[in-house]
């Protein structure tokens, strides 16, 4: 799709949608959203970008190979559960900052876990999309 209109639109849209996907990830704990949907939204945006500018350019925009991203996501999610172990709690128990932390409120390891899910979903979708697009 070499249309100038589409290219300009996507260029403007990509950061916005990515920002929105992060918003979905962060608000997910209390309102509709979460890492899974966030990852899907981000991958939709990047897929659109790839349709417009081609896989090569998208890959260089990403810097990392999508599958590495997915594996990192799985590693982050697993690692977020390890923090509980030295404290003497079972693997994957959520650890939280105090309720009255300024600005953000309570945040904890489940957010890190959700970020891992986000990366894993994004990486998996992009791996499949890129493989299918590259002949």
């Amino acid at each position, binding site marked *: 799709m070499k249309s100038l209109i589409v290219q300009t639109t996507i260029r403007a849209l990509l950061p916005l949608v990515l920002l929105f996907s992060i918003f979905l990830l962060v608000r*997910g*704990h*209390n*309102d*509709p*959203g*979460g*890492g*899974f*949907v966030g990852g*899907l*939204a981000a*991958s*939709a945006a990047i*897929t659109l970008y790839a349709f417009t500018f081609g896989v090569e350019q998208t890959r260089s925009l990403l810097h990392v190979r999508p*599958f590495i991203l*997915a*594996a990192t*996501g*799985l590693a982050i*999610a*697993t690692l977020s*559960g390890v923090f509980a172990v030295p404290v003497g709690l079972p*693997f*994957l128990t*959520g650890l*939280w900052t105090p*309720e009255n932390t300024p600005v953000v*409120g*309570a945040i*904890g390891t*489940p*957010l890190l*876990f*959700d970020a*891992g*899910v986000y990366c*894993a*979903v994004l*990486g*998996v*979708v992009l*791996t*499949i*999309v890129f*493989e*299918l*697009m590259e*002949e």
Partner: protein
Amino acid sequence: MISPFSIILSGFLFAAAAPLLQRFTRDRAHVILALYPLLTLLLLINEYGLVVDGPVIRESLSWVPSLGIGLSFALDGLAYFFALIITTIGLLVLLYASAYFKGDQRLPRFYLLFMSFMASMLGLVLADTLITLFVFWELTGVSSYFLIGFNNQRAAARAGALQALLVTGLGGLALLAGFIMLGNIAGSYDLPRIMESSAIIQQSPLYPAILFLLLLGAFTKSAQVPFHFWLPNAMEAPTPVSAYLHSATMVKAGIYLLARLSPALGGTELWHYALSIPGAITMLLGAFLAFGQTDLKRLLAYSTISALGTLTLLLGLYTDDAVKAALIFLFVHSLYKGALFMIAGSVDHESGTRDIRALGGLYLQMPATAAAAVLAALSMAGLPPLLGFISKELLYEAKLQAPVAAPFVTAAGVCANALIVALAAKFVLMTFFGQAHSTPKQPHEAPILMRIGPALLAGFGLIAGLLPDQLASRLIEGAVQAVRPEIAPVHFSLWHGFTDVLILSTLTVGAGIALFRWGGWLLVRGERMRVLASLGPARAYDSLLRGTLRLANALTDAIQDGTLRHYLLLALIFLCVLLGAAAAPLLRHGTLPAMSGIPFHEAATAVLIALGAVTVASSKSRFTAITALGVVGFGVSLIFLFYGAPDLALTQFSIETLSIVLFVLVLPRLPKLLDTSSLSTRIRDALLSSLLGLLVALLVLLGADAHAPSHLQEFFGEYSVPFAHGRNVVNVILVDFRSLDTIGEITVLLVSALGVYALMRSWPGERQ
């Protein structure tokens, strides 16, 4: 204070470091690795008084507290005795192997496997709970599989390794079942508790079943008839492996288990017969089959089977004398068999053959090895003043006093021992003396590291024979007490006076020499028996293995014929059966909810979904079908939204969007949609899918009315804010309450992405 856990752990650390050590020390890793068995041995010797006289050293780590399973270790007399054998022979074989494999590229791998085996074996004898014992039991099986199949380019080595793994692995499964039953009866997997529950266990109706399962485990591991056939085939292993695993350690694991559990299970009539009959048969058959062997290692393997049979028989008799005899014989056998295996390896290494018919007169070229061989063989034959003589005297004493069938047991013992004497003579006389033959390699003396092991082991047999009370009795004292706590102190002496035991001994040696001299007729019969024996259990193993593979192939061919439609068909039929089974009781008792008051927008969406589904099924173009499928998906997300599940709706919307994108990408790669299926196929498919749809709809409608009371909704509603600081229950479940499931799910995602990657990269005709 000695810590069993750190001993085992450091063994595995040495194993893990071995390949790197070998690289950094430029092929001198054995010097560092030998420190492990050496230091452990010194530590053990240093703690002798503590173990034999003091309380048992116990150590326990929490492992699976929710199931009451700990990682516990104990160092009592029996464990001490076995640990001494494992570390001593391990040290000598390790040094032997470093010379045997000199310059071999595979040496790092050998060290890794060998050290892991040693650590696993130590773990096995030091374990203080059944579960810990089982874990190390299986670890020895796995590491021995790799060691037997070390020459993995030989088909025979691979087959031998697999056979050993399958036979002992099957026994391991039976053992686990037996352990679990035992643990249930005793109320604990801890060995001390099981020893205390001896009376309850022996009166339990499950006692025969437990004994049967445990014996299956012990008999497969310790190569008792009819499971003996794997041991000779395991001789495909490199000789250092056989010297360690198949003389002193792994094959003795079954004997160790019997000795360890005998205070809890032993002494009954059933125990007596279930052990002594197979033991006696194994003792006789092993010695008899060994007689016809011409390969040095196979000869030793069959004589090991005979020795293991003797040990089982003695533990079956379970008198004070029998236990003493068993432990001292186990020790003697480890000494001389370890030495003889190493000697067989040296002969093979230096002359290029281990066929007894091609060897002879080697004492000129290999004097030191020959001297060690003579000493070891004398101990094997049970001649004074070696330790083997004392052990054989005790053996006869125990057999003469057997509680049942003493004459029969004694006669069988004399026959087997006479054969063993003949075997010892055959091994030494035909290899090192007599007519020299030309061998593939010009024979010369083995390197020093390959002489130390046999010399020390054989030499110790002599020294311990001369000083029995100072060395041998002190050695097994602790072990005997662990097996039979109320036994009197152990004393050995070389000379018992002119007793009937001495007459039996003389008779045995005379018969043995006669057998060696004029045993040709027996040899011919032995040859015939060998064919028969190989037809028996080995044949059963082969046909069982082949049958299993054939069944697996037939099943795979039937279920997975390569057609995606058939996979789908099978899966859906199966789903129909499952759903039908679930729906049947509901149909009888449940009531369908009233179908009134459905708002217009919901009804319209439902009609839209149904129309979309019909379009998908009847469309002649893929593009139309995909678009219609999108209508179905978006319709479903609308329904989610109507029923107040914004999270689900949001996710479903995104998924639908991305699915259509993916379909568009795949579309150009697919062939044109053609009418290939016949009318009957289509009718069948339509019927099946309608049935499935109907069943699902019925289940949902009935289930909405008749679901079992559940507290999940209240639980998550109540606890999601205080415990997980989140108001979005769906997300809280995903990332907190059920986060382990989520990890599983994203792992599946990654695997499927890998699958797509692999499929695309192997697309025929495109990327090269």
